[in-house]
């Protein structure tokens, strides 16, 4: 393990707060994320390369080499070690970050749970990629959806700019004293991570003052106030600790809202757990997460042009899940298609579908909901497939539900 020692970064208290400025730049999603990490200037970053995440660390390690950040970049020998190093650093009181994809996340698994259960506010970018086997480097959401119950907050990003903003907001959410949970920021592998797009980047000072300095509540290195992390915890207290973890996730619902609102006041960009597009009088709605939302939006505009009452609901926050809000957003809709970019083998539909369908269980007023599993292993979601979904929703709207769980764009 090589640790590059650098001078500790501190906020300069004499900096005069300047007016927020935005710059429009051509950046890949990976570069956007690296840019957020540069501005956050974490104390410790530990990472191991894996496609398509590598481009984040490629760009970030350049910042380290150029002295643009004061981060201790720990180049570990595996993802299991990457998350372990983040756990150690975070427990010590450092602001710690990492990034990974697919099999890298799978190798981290054990420590991913430990990070959440130890209540360490680590921020990790997950560049969504299909899990092996067969080996595939392209996008689907099997990796992050597998972490559904790991205790991590999950934010999804439609494009590089959103990945950038989610990363910055993620730091604030994770470190809030009522939360203290790790945050996973997801973006689509290649589609977002390797695509040069227009992205609005905030100025460094705005980001620095937004995230503030991190003062860990119970740092391991505070020798005057000794604490223990990760002790044996049997039937006497384990359950209580899990209950507190559930409570922290409940608190996150309020804190995420506060952070979104504050970010909106500063930047003028207002985000929500679920973001509707042309939902107001929509009868047929597609729900999805990440880059597909952009493609669906194009079809919504096209069909609206022909007078069809269609809309889109984009999922930004998957964990914690805001039951009431999904009901509020969709209860007046007549037919909903939930697009899942991951399969739940043996389950009744994909993870997003299961969540949405269950949210409506007690409701009297509810849409007919169907599920499409799509885009596995990077299979492209094109406009024609989305048009087909809206077309099939017409039948569903009229009560002919047919198959609840369907597959889109696959040879059968």
């Amino acid at each position, binding site marked *: 393990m090589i640790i590059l020692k650098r001078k500790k970064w501190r906020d300069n208290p004499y900096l005069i707060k300047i007016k927020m400025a935005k710059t*429009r*730049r*051509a950046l890949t999603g990976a570069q956007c994320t690296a840019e957020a990490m540069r501005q956050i200037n974490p104390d410790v970053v530990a990472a191991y390369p894996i496609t398509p995440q590598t481009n984040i660390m490629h760009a970030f390690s350049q910042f380290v080499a150029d002295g643009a950040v004061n981060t201790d970049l720990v180049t570990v020998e595996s993802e299991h070690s990457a998350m372990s190093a983040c756990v150690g650093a975070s427990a010590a009181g450092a602001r710690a970050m990492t990034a990974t994809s697919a099999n890298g996340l799978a190798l981290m698994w054990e420590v991913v749970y430990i990070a959440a259960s130890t209540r360490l506010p680590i921020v990790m970018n997950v560049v969504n990629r299909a899990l092996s086997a067969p080996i595939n*480097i*392209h996008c689907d959401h099997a990796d992050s959806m597998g972490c559904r119950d790991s205790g991590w907050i999950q934010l999804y990003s439609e*494009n590089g700019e959103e990945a950038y903003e989610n990363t910055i907001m993620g730091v604030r959410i994770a470190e809030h004293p009522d939360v203290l949970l790790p945050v996973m920021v997801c973006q*689509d592998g*290649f*589609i*977002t991570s*390797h*695509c*040069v*797009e*227009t992205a609005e980047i905030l100025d460094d000072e705005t980001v620095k003052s937004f995230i503030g300095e991190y003062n860990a509540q119970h740092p391991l290195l505070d020798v005057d106030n000794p604490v223990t992390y990760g002790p044996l915890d049997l039937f006497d207290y384990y359950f209580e600790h899990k209950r507190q973890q559930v409570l922290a996730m409940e608190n996150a619902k309020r804190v995420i809202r506060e952070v979104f609102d504050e970010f909106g006041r500063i930047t003028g960009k207002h985000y929500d757990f679920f973001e509707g597009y042309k939902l107001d009088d929509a009868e047929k709605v597609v729900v999805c997460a990440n*880059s*597909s939302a*952009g*493609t669906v*939006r*194009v079809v919504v505009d096209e069909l609206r042009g022909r007078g069809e009452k269609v809309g889109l609901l984009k999922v930004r926050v998957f964990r914690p899940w805001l039951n009431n809000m999904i009901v509020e957003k969709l209860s007046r809709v007549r037919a909903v298609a939930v697009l899942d970019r991951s399969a739940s083998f043996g389950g009744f539909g994909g993870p997003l579908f299961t969540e949405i369908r269950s949210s409506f269980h007690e409701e009297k007023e509810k849409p007919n909901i169907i599920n499409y599993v799509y885009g596995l292993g990077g299979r*492209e*979601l*094109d*406009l024609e497939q989305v048009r087909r979904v809206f077309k099939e929703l017409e039948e569903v709207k009229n009560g002919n539900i047919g198959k609840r769980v369907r597959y889109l764009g696959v040879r059968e």
Partner: protein
Amino acid sequence: MHRDVFETRFHGRGGQGAKTAAALLAEAAIEQGKYVQSFPEYGAERQGAPVKAFTRISDKPIYLHSGVTNPDVVVVIDQTLLKSIPVTQGLSEERGLLIVNTNQGVDNVKSITGFNGRIIVIDAVKIALEELGRAVTNTAMLGALEKATGVVDYEGLKKHILKHFAYHLGEDLAMKNVNAFERAYNEVGL
């Protein structure tokens, strides 16, 4: 152009700079206040294998995240691809444009591809060898594309090529790339 979004597809082989050409075009466009997307199609990335790269340019934000299926322009950086890859797929014969790096004539390209739309040929290898000393033709092909479409500001694109290569390859090679770009721009027959 004739649609809201200008779409280009570059065909090349791994290492020939198709991805870089697509990105340079996008980056130059954004400096001129446009909205852009640029992305390669990744199979198994390796030197010499056929690759595709795309650029979208628009006055409005671009939300679409699927590949380019009906490009306005196709740029073929390596003429050996004409026989092995369906380079004109989705390219309209009425309003599409095919730009090929070849030492052969338009008729030759037409007979290989069967494409009856507008074709522009340029011997970019000759230009690249004379200007750069290497058969890397992406900047020359950008010159031809710029002359044929004027999709971004000429001076802006030139400046951006200089900036990009000065950072990555040093000023000498950057100037040589600009020369290749300029020569192709001036020499391409429309």
